[in-house]
């Protein structure tokens, strides 16, 4: 009874997150996009010669994450910028003057929800791929095999991390359009820029989000020169932590 704390603020953020339609649309969009990509990949390989490998199907059927990272990144950013855009932020900070507690609760609730959605999307991608190749000679990729389960799980982690980067970016720029634009730039531009490094591109590329996703995290075995999947996922979580911390520093001193 000695005052509000993280628990109360997290409950507030949970109510907020599930009471706006954008959350439902972006979450549903994530799962549908990944399922459709997985199914599309599977169908594309059905008549492919030579017969595709299990790894090929799995790796490619998770590539819906390229779109999903933007949807969930936007979901994360909107938890902050949606409040600045509407004026809700003043109600929030009047109820909870400790602003870093608000951001921590947004990160925890948003991170938890997007992890669940990301894992659901990732599973849907895998399932879409597997169903689409049913009845063909293409070998399946059962999830009881850790080699197959690992990329599915890590892709979910990657997607939650992009949502947290969205939360941090949202707190930095406080504007929905600017936040989504900046998020898009952060996720895509570095992967093009890697080409400028020529021979040493891989040394840089293994730290670039999109390249980590496509060549290390969402694949059964990482491309030469890149980190193991779980290390890449940790690097993404590190980026997320930095983004949220930067947001927290600025949030404290600005007028709301």
């Amino acid at each position, binding site marked *: 009874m*000695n*005052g*509000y704390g993280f628990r*109360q*603020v997290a*409950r*507030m*953020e*949970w*109510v*907020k997150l599930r*009471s*706006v*339609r*954008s959350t439902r649309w972006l979450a549903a969009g994530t799962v549908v996009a990944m399922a459709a990509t997985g199914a599309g990949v599977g169908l594309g390989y059905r008549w492919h010669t030579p017969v595709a490998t299990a790894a090929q199907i799995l790796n490619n059927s998770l590539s819906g994450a390229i779109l999903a990272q933007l949807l969930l990144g936007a979901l994360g950013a909107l938890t902050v910028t*949606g*409040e600045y855009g*509407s*004026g*809700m932020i*003043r*109600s*929030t*900070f*009047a*109820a*909870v*003057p*400790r602003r870093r507690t608000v951001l921590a609760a947004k990160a925890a609730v948003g991170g938890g929800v997007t992890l669940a959605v990301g894992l659901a999307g990732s599973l849907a991608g895998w399932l879409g791929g597997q169903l689409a190749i049913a009845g063909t000679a293409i070998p399946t990729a059962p999830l009881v095999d850790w080699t197959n389960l690992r990329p599915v799980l890590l892709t979910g982690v990657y997607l939650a991390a992009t949502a947290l980067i969205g939360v941090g970016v949202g707190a930095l720029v406080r504007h929905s359009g600017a936040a989504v634009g900046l998020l898009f730039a952060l996720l895509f531009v570095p992967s093009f820029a890697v080409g400028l490094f020529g021979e040493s591109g891989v040394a840089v590329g293994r730290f670039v989000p999109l390249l980590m996703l496509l060549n290390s995290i969402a694949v059964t075995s990482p491309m030469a020169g890149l980190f193991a999947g779980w290390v890449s996922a940790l690097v993404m979580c590190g980026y997320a932590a930095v983004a949220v911390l930067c947001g927290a520093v600025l949030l404290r*001193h600005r*007028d*709301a």
Partner: protein
Amino acid sequence: MIELRELTKRYGDRVAVDRLNVRVQPGVVTGFLGPNGSGKSTTMRMILGLDAPDHGEALIGGVPYADLSWPLRSVGALLDAGAFHPGRSGHAHLTALAASNDIPASRVERVLRVVGLSDAATRRAGTYSLGMRQRLGVAVALLGDPGVLLLDEPVNGLDPEGIRWIRNLLRGLAAEGRTVLVSSHLITEMALTADRLVVIGRGRLLAETTVAELAAGHDTLEDAFLRLTAPTTDHRGTETS
């Protein structure tokens, strides 16, 4: 009680609030008056810790707002009629804020009834009329049954019935011993609602008085107010011919 000590806010080289010293007492409605741009809203935002003062402090019952254990249970505020997410229902808006201060869900239903929004509670707040938005803001202010109420221009957008409702509500809350600070630029409305008046212009305190004292010696209260604030009124129109 609300206490402002040397409260000062600058935006660049413009001083929005200038060394304001005011005590707002419980048990009466205090009207916070001033022309447009006189610093009323800035002062209220500083009391709520939303804007940081450049100098001085604002205290609620002796402590800064940020140090309150359960802010919504101590201070209820209506800042502007748009401090909600348009896609969220009025009910969800109140439920979220209640959760942050461990306020029971029964209070949400209660304040919805008090402000007359029970029937519209599940609609998205973005579809509300201006008067309904004000009512939702008042519901937020009442949510924690606070001893201190701050309302910035609460009658904006309300119809005559709503204006009278707000007036009676505020007077009733003050009669229960609460501290009630209501800002307005409408002196005639304040004359009907407030007991005490705090008048500011260009961020400075012009008068701390009662309605009767301010009106004394003038034809109308409006004349008295315009005389008092004339040197600090920034934007003035002229007649068309």
